[in-house]
């Protein structure tokens, strides 16, 4: 039985019956199990050794990444709960008919009853979701992401221009998902805090990356007057534009293609 295995780790093979026997006849019960049996006088490392590893069967342990330390266990547990909560919310949103035009187009098959299909067709495998969430967390746990979300509120985000967090609940192949994550993180780099020294240095780095997505961002720059949220680090122009009216460009002037998709960003 699970709990018995665990009991061996802290104080010898003591079950309650063991104690009872000890009480009645007053003598110490002999060790039955040489592996687990530890008397306090021993003080050797065995007891510590066995108790260091988390009992696999006696409690919920993270399926992926066998972490024995409590810090990681709690973090994994927290992530698992968050993912489940996200899943509830996502399901409700999808099945609640908040599916937009975009969603209808991308969901395969006939028109009409895509909504429930979307809900059923979502990724539900916990291991996959947790892995994806971890990858998302790595991306979000950056200064770049912090700066990005402060600079660009959701309703002002332009698809293609602004990075969008991949939707972990969509069915994608492993390769496709990993690629989405990679591209997303590259896009986020545009919001990296400027390093000490010149902005040129940042520009050089961008050139070195040589990726199409990054070049796309640069191409948007001539239209600075209506995309005031373009990151300052990508251009030297922004400095000269400070104080000019482009900063005061009213939001409504911008032609943003507002989408009401469940944006996980």
């Amino acid at each position: 039985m699970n709990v018995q295995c665990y009991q061996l780790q802290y104080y010898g093979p003591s079950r309650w019956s063991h104690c009872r026997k000890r009480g009645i006849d007053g003598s110490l019960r002999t060790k039955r199990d040489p592996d687990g049996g530890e008397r306090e006088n021993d003080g050797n490392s065995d007891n510590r050794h066995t108790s260091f590893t988390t009992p696999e069967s006696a409690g919920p342990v993270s399926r992926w990444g066998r972490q024995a330390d409590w810090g990681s266990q709690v973090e994994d547990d927290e992530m698992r709960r968050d993912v489940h909560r996200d899943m509830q919310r996502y399901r409700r949103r999808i099945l609640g008919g908040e599916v937009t035009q975009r969603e209808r187009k991308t969901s395969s098959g006939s028109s009409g009853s895509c909504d429930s299909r979307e809900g059923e067709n979502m990724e539900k495998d916990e291991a996959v979701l947790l892995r994806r969430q971890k990858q998302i967390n790595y991306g979000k746990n950056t200064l770049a992401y912090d700066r990005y979300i402060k600079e660009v509120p959701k309703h002002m985000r332009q698809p293609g221009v602004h990075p969008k967090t991949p939707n972990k609940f969509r069915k994608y192949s492993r390769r496709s998902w990993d690629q989405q994550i990679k591209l997303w993180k590259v896009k986020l780099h545009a919001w990296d805090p400027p390093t000490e020294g010149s902005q040129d240095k940042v520009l050089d780095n961008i050139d070195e990356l040589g990726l199409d997505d990054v070049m796309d961002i640069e191409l948007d720059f001539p239209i600075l007057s209506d995309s005031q949220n373009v990151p300052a680090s990508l251009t030297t122009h922004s400095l000269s534009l400070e104080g000019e009216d482009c900063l005061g460009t009213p939001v409504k002037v911008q032609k943003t293609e507002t989408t009401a998709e469940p944006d996980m960003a």
Partner: protein
Amino acid sequence: MENSTDDYRIQSFDLDTQMLLKTALKDPSSVNLEKVSNIIMDQSLKDQVFSKEAGRICYTIVQAEAKQSNGIVFRRNLLNRLQQEFNDREETRQRSLQEWVCYVTFICNIFDYLKVNNMPMVALVHPVFDCLMRLAQPDALMNEEEVDCLVLQLHRIGEQLEKVNGQRMDELFFLLRDGFLLQEGLTSMARLLLLEILEFRAGGWLLSSTAHKYYYSEIAD
């Protein structure tokens, strides 16, 4: 300001450390959180008064860090330190009963306060039970301070523990019944404490008013 720090019972620290803790509460990313968690841990092992409520200050720092920078440095360090001490608990108990009792009080207090999404931290459930089971062993029952510690923890977190693992709670109480009935050499205080906790749990983690009168009326007077 004074009131809030009283709640955390940090008066036993020297002034510099008090300052550090107060800063940690308000501006966690400006301090070395690993150091802070070690300070709190070390003090909890020495100071019984502090260990009884140290969970509260830990909770506040965890929340503050999460809010300020989405960080988990403090919590992670605290938990891993807690785990280290857990692994060495038998040795600690041999060396100093006081320190052992303080440790159990502290880990139970952490279990009580540090919740994850309002749920107890799963990682702590078995370790907490292990500690309580240790306190229910025959040799431990002979020491009033260990019995006292045991019943205190059960009063505070027994109900929560039972909810997350009823089976282990049952096993613990098998030990307590055995101890109460069969253990020779128990002091009358120890037996009183055990009887009270047996009734307490039997009453659904509540003491009936008559039982309360029996056990506590003298104190009230």
